[in-house]
C-alpha cells in the first residue's frame, strides 16, 4: 500500500488529558465574545446600524490603494492568518465531525497550511523590518509591537509544533504544543482589547453608510490601525502644528478641533475611509453650542454672518455695487458671486472675469446683487448648524433655477441647501467642449491647485484641467499632491478667519503649498476658489516668491486668453 494514503495529522499527539485545552478554549472564546460585544454595544448605543461589508473591505483591497507595498505586507499577514484559521477549523471538523484529512487530501492541506504560515511569517518579518528601519508615520509602543510579536510567537511555535511532530520528537512535543496553545488562546482572548480588533472594526467602518458623525466616530475609533497615512497628508501636521488627523481621532480636544482645515485629505488617504475631519466638525458643533471654547476670530466671523449675512461685515450695498458694475445682460443662468467677492478686490476680479467669459461665449446671465443670500458654508465648516440651517432655508427661498457659483464654498453650501448649483469651471468646460470659447496665448507653464471643496468634496477634478489643456501654448505641470490628493491652501475649516492655529505652526500651510507650486517650475499657479486665491497670493508674498510665479484664478486666465469672439461693452 502506498504510504502516502496513510498520511494524516495525529490529533492531540502525546497529549494525555485534553480537558484543560477545551476549558481554556471555551474561556478564551467567552472573553473574546465579551470584548467584541462590549465594542459593538458601544457602537449600537451611538446609533450604528449593521450593514454588510463591501467586497473591497473583505478583500483588504482598500489597504493596497495608496501604498501598494504596505498593502502587500498587510495582505501577506491577513491571508496567512486567515488561511491558518481556516486550517484549524478544518482540522477540528476532521477530528469531531467527519475524518476527511487523509492521504493526498491531507498532504495538500498540510502544504496549504505551511504556505499560509510562511506568508504570515514573511509579512510579519516585513512589518518588523519596516518598523526597525523607521517609517515616520508609524508609532512605536506596546500597542504597535504587541500584536506583531504575538503573531510572530503564534506562527513560530506553530511551526515548531509541526516540526517536532514530523520529526517524531515526542518528549519535547507536549510542552511546545501547550506553549503554542496558550499563546494562541491568550491572544484570541485579548484581541478585542488590542489594535487587532480592527479585523472586525475595519470592515464595519468601510460598511458605514449615512449614519451621523456621532454614530460613526466610535466605529472609526475602534477601526483605526494607527497606520498614519492621514498624518502624511494632514495640512496642520505638515505645517508643524500640534495637530494630526490620527492624533485627533484617537485623543482630540475641543481646542485642537479648530486646527483642522476640514480639507478631507485624511479621509482620502485612509484605507478605511475614516473621515477625521468630520469628527473635528462634530467637536466644533459641541463647542459652538457651549460657547466658551470658540476662538475669537471664528466667533466674530459667525456673528457677522448672523448680522450681515457674510463673515466680512460687508453691507448689502457692497454686493449691490459689484452687481451694478458687472451689468448682467439678463438670462436664466444665475451667477452667484459670493461674499468674498463682494469685499475682497482680488476675489472681485474673479467674478469680473467670469462675467466677461460668459459674455464672450454669449451666455445670458443674471445676478441677485443686493438680494444674493449667504450660502452658509462657513457656518457648516465651523459647526454652527443652526446658522447653516437658517442660511440654507433662505438660499432655497431666493434661488430658483441653475446657479453658477464663483466659489466652491458657495457650490458646497448651495448644493447642501438643495439648490441646483454648478461651479463655474464646470460651465466653462462645457463651453470649451462646445467650441464656444477659443483660448489662445503665448507659451506658459502652469500648475493647478485643486481647491479642497471643489476636488475632494465635490469631485470636480477634470473640468478645470480640460479648460487649461484647451489653452493654446499652455503646458500643465502637476504638483506631486494634486487632484483629490491636493494639499489645502490653509484657508479651509474657517481658518481664514482664525489666526490662532497659524501661530503654532513652524511654516504656514499656505506657504508650504506655494513652495510646492514653485517647485514645479511653473510661471503660473492657477486655482479656482476665491479663498485659495487670497491665501496663496498672501503666501506668495510672505514666502518671498513674488518673482517666481503668479497666482491667478482660472476665470481670470480664461478671460485673458479668450479672443476672436465679440465682447459686450461693460460699463466700468
Amino acid at each position: 500500500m502506498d504510504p502516502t494514503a496513510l498520511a494524516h495529522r495525529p490529533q492531540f499527539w502525546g497529549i494525555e488529558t485534553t480537558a484543560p485545552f477545551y476549558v481554556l478554549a471555551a474561556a478564551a472564546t467567552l472573553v473574546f465574545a465579551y470584548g467584541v460585544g462590549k465594542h459593538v454595544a458601544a457602537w449600537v448605543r451611538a446609533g450604528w446600524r449593521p450593514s454588510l461589508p463591501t467586497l473591497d473591505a473583505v478583500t483588504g483591497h482598500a489597504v493596497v490603494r495608496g501604498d501598494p507595498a504596505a498593502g502587500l505586507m498587510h495582505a501577506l499577514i491577513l491571508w496567512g492568518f486567515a488561511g491558518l484559521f481556516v486550517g484549524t477549523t478544518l482540522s477540528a471538523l476532521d477530528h469531531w465531525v467527519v475524518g476527511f484529512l487523509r492521504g493526498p487530501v491531507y498532504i495538500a492541506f498540510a502544504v496549504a497550511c505551511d504556505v499560509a504560515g510562511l506568508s504570515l511569517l514573511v509579512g510579519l518579518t516585513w512589518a518588523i523590518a519596516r518598523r526597525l528601519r523607521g517609517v515616520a508615520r508609524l508609532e512605536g509602543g506596546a500597542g504597535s509591537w504587541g500584536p506583531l510579536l504575538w503573531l510572530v510567537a503564534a506562527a513560530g511555535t506553530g511551526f515548531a509544533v509541526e516540526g517536532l511532530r514530523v520529526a517524531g520528537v515526542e518528549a519535547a512535543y507536549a510542552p511546545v504544543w501547550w506553549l503554542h496553545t496558550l499563546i494562541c488562546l491568550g491572544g484570541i482572548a485579548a484581541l478585542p482589547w488590542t489594535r487587532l480588533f480592527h479585523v472586525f472594526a475595519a470592515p464595519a467602518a468601510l460598511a458605514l453608510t449615512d449614519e451621523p458623525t456621532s454614530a460613526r466616530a466610535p466605529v472609526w475609533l475602534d477601526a483605526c490601525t494607527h497606520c498614519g497615512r492621514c498624518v502624511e497628508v494632514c495640512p496642520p501636521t505638515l505645517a508643524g502644528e500640534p495637530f494630526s488627523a490620527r492624533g485627533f481621532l484617537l485623543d482630540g480636544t475641543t481646542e485642537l478641533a479648530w486646527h483642522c482645515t476640514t480639507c478631507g485629505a485624511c479621509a482620502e488617504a485612509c484605507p478605511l475611509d475614516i473621515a477625521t475631519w468630520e469628527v473635528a466638525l462634530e467637536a466644533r458643533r459641541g463647542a459652538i453650542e457651549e460657547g466658551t471654547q470658540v476662538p475669537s476670530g471664528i466667533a466674530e466671523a459667525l456673528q457677522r454672518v448672523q448680522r450681515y449675512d457674510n463673515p466680512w461685515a460687508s453691507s448689502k450695498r457692497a454686493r449691490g455695487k459689484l452687481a451694478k458694475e458687472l451689468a448682467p445682460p439678463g438670462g436664466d443662468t444665475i451667477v452667484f458671486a459670493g461674499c468674498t467677492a463682494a469685499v475682497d478686490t482680488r476675489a472681485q476680479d474673479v467674478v469680473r472675469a467670469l462675467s466677461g467669459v460668459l459674455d464672450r461665449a454669449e451666455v445670458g446671465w443674471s445676478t441677485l446683487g443686493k438680494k444674493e443670500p449667504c450660502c452658509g458654508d462657513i457656518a457648516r465648516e465651523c459647526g454652527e448648524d443652526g446658522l447653516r440651517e437658517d442660511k440654507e432655508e433662505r438660499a432655497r427661498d431666493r434661488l430658483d433655477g441653475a446657479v453658477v457659483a464663483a466659489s466652491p464654498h458657495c457650490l458646497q453650501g448651495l448644493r447642501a441647501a438643495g439648490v441646483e448649483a454648478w461651479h463655474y469651471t464646470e460651465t466653462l468646460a462645457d463651453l470649451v467642449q462646445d467650441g464656444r470659447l477659443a483660448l489662445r496665448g503665448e507659451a506658459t507653464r502652469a500648475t493647478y491647485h485643486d481647491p479642497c471643496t471643489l476636488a475632494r468634496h465635490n469631485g470636480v477634478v477634470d473640468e478645470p484641467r480640460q479648460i487649461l489643456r484647451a489653452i493654446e501654448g499652455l503646458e500643465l505641470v502637476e504638483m506631486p499632491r494634486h487632484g483629490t490628493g491636493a494639499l489645502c491652501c490653509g484657508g479651509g475649516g474657517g481658518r481664514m478667519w482664525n489666526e490662532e492655529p497659524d501661530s503654532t505652526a513652524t511654516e504656514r500651510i499656505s506657504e508650504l503649498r506655494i513652495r510646492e507650486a514653485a517647485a514645479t517650475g511653473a510661471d503660473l499657479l492657477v486655482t479656482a476658489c476665491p479663498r485659495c486665491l487670497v491665501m496663496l497670493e498672501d503666501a506668495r508674498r510672505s514666502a518671498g516668491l513674488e518673482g517666481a510665479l503668479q497666482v491667478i484664478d482660472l476665470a481670470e486666465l480664461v478671460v485673458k486668453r479668450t479672443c476672436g469672439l465679440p465682447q459686450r461693452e461693460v460699463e466700468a
Partner: protein
Amino acid sequence: MKIAVCIKQVPEVADEELELDDGRVDTDDLVPTLNEWDAYALEEAVRISEAHGGRVVAVTLGDDEAEDELRRALAMGAHEAVRIDAEDYEDADGIGIARGLAAILEELAPELILTGAQSADTGWGQVGPALAALLGWPHATLAVGIEVGDGALVVQRELEDNTAAEVALELPAVVTVQTGLNEPRYVSVMGIRKVRGVSIDVRAGGDPGRSAVARRTLSLPERSRGGERLEGSLDEVCTRAAQAIRTRLGR
C-alpha cells in the same frame, strides 16, 4: 446672588459710512446689535453665577426689536429678561435713562448691577454712575477685573496710561465694565432658538424727568488732518492743549 445686567441695543457701524437724516443718525441700513461693553458685563454676570450660584436678570430699555438682545442674554445664560418699554425715553439723556432703570431695579432688588462702561452709539458713559447715585449704592467704573467676596467686591479699574486702581465695594453695588474683562461666549443660532419660548417681562419704567442735556442737531466731523502729539509734564501738556483750543476757536 442676584445680578442685574443693564444692556442696550445699538446700531452697529462696522465699515459702514454714517449718514445723517435731519440731524439724527440714519439707522435704516445699520444692523442692530448688542452694545459691545454690555456683552462683557453679561458674560461676567453669567460667570459669577456659575461660580457662586445665583440668578442673572438682563434688563434693557428699548423697543420690541431690543428683545433680540434679551434673547441673546438668555442664550448666554441669563435666567430672566425684563424689557422697559422705551416709549418715554426717546429724548432722555444718560440721567433720564438711569431714572427709568432705577425704578425697575429697585423692584428687582439685585445685590449687584453690572453694565457696560459706555454704549457704542452715544458713548456718554453716564448710566452706571447715575444709577448708583439714584439708588444710593457705591459704584466702580471701567472694571477690568471683578472678584466676588462675602457681601463685598474687589474691582480692578482701568485708569489712563496703563495704570489701574483696586477698589473694594460693599454690596449692593453698581459696576460698569470695560471691554477685555473676559471673553464673551459665542451665542449660537440654536442657543437663541432654545430660548425662543422664554417670556420676557415687559414693564413701564420710572419717570425720565427733565433732560439735563438737550440734543439740537448732529453733524459729521470734518475729516481731520492728523493730530499733534503734545509732550512734557501734565501741566505743560494741559497749558498747550488749552492754547491750541483757544487758537482754534479764534480767541
